[in-house]
């Protein structure tokens, strides 16, 4: 089988993309994205509401929002709540992983 070498775009907190790009790859409408900005789920990297830019990591957040909205048939309020709770869970999981990495292996294994 042929192996094709392809360029991968790293979705991180350093690189920037436009609002239009988020719309294109997430499948959300402009108003949906602006709703997510208003509720603090997405944070633009600049302060210009007419021409927002985002860290490329926001693509992942927007795609998750689209999946949750479609798969659970959520309205804007339900979606914002679900996303906030997910974000909180991720924060707690990350803190737990961080604490686990610092303690003795016997403690980690419980």
């Amino acid at each position, binding site marked *: 089988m042929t*192996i094709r070498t392809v360029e991968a775009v790293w*979705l*991180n907190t350093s690189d920037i993309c436009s609002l239009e790009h988020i719309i294109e*790859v997430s499948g959300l409408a402009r108003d949906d994205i602006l709703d997510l900005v208003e509720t603090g789920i997405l944070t633009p990297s600049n302060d210009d509401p007419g021409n927002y830019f985002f860290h490329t990591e926001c693509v992942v957040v927007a795609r998750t929002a689209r999946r949750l909205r479609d798969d659970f048939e959520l309205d804007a309020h339900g979606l914002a709540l679900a996303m906030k709770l*997910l974000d909180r869970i991720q924060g707690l999981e990350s803190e737990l992983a961080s604490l*686990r990495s*610092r303690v003795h292996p016997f403690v980690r294994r419980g």
Partner: protein
Amino acid sequence: MKYIDYYQVLGLARDATQADIKKAYRKLAHQYHPDVSKEAGAEDKFKQVAEAYATLKDPEKRAAYDALGTRPAGEDFVPPREWREHFHEAPQDFEDVDLADLLAAFAAAQGGGRRGRTGQPLHGQDFEMVLPVSLEQVYSGAETDISVAVPDYDAQGLLHRVPRTFRVRIPKGAAEGQRLRLPGKGGSGLHGGRPGDLYLVIQISPHKLYRLDKQDLYLDLPLSPWEAVLGGTVQVPTLGGPVEMTIPPGTVADRKLRLAKRGMPGANGTQGDLYAAVRIDVPRTPTEQERELFSQLAAVSGYDPRAQLNAGKQP
């Protein structure tokens, strides 16, 4: 083509109502949705549930599915003659076709689907896959191969799962859970629609030596009692190769000795640190001479490690 019993997947009888189907889907979606579930195999289970729901909630797709009759789940089968003729395909052409894709194509051909006869552009399907990588690969930014069965339309508008292998470079410093987007490497589009994307979720495999905390690495460093008391220089393995580390005299267990900038690289050119967490180890089967020297030490030392513990004890 494998037969999938969609009713069984949703835990329903074949005469289930639309309300029953929706209720069963919601219940299973809450349990297995990959964004909310941590259950092992949840993602695959949800894919089956979503596929079953997408078929059974659509009356045309459901009717087409029901017309296939009941078969044992997982049984290999070839669609009926009229379906084959409809797509101008030979029986063996269906081997790499998914049942859900066939039903979608059939429903669309009947005029009910999104793809209908309008010929409007349809974007290709996006995919998300886990990409297991090692700490070494992330540290150095290595290349790795990933294989995926990509859906590709044939001339009749039927999706075939075509195996493809892509070679990607893991960015130096990619973090756990971050995604790599491979533009246009998902499913093919239809009627001029752009192809979908392939998303790779970075999953860093546990390492036998190091534990990862964001950009910092933690390593257990065993020391002998005399190294801990007297101090010295020991060799410590790092991802960039072994380095010499100075152990200060009087080093106690659990002390974390930092090796600056020996951790993981970050996206913005930063570098984490490596922390060596001290463990004091002892010779489990000391030689006669070691035992003798420890006995001498015990006889002359006034050090009491439990002084604080026993401070309030009655004589």
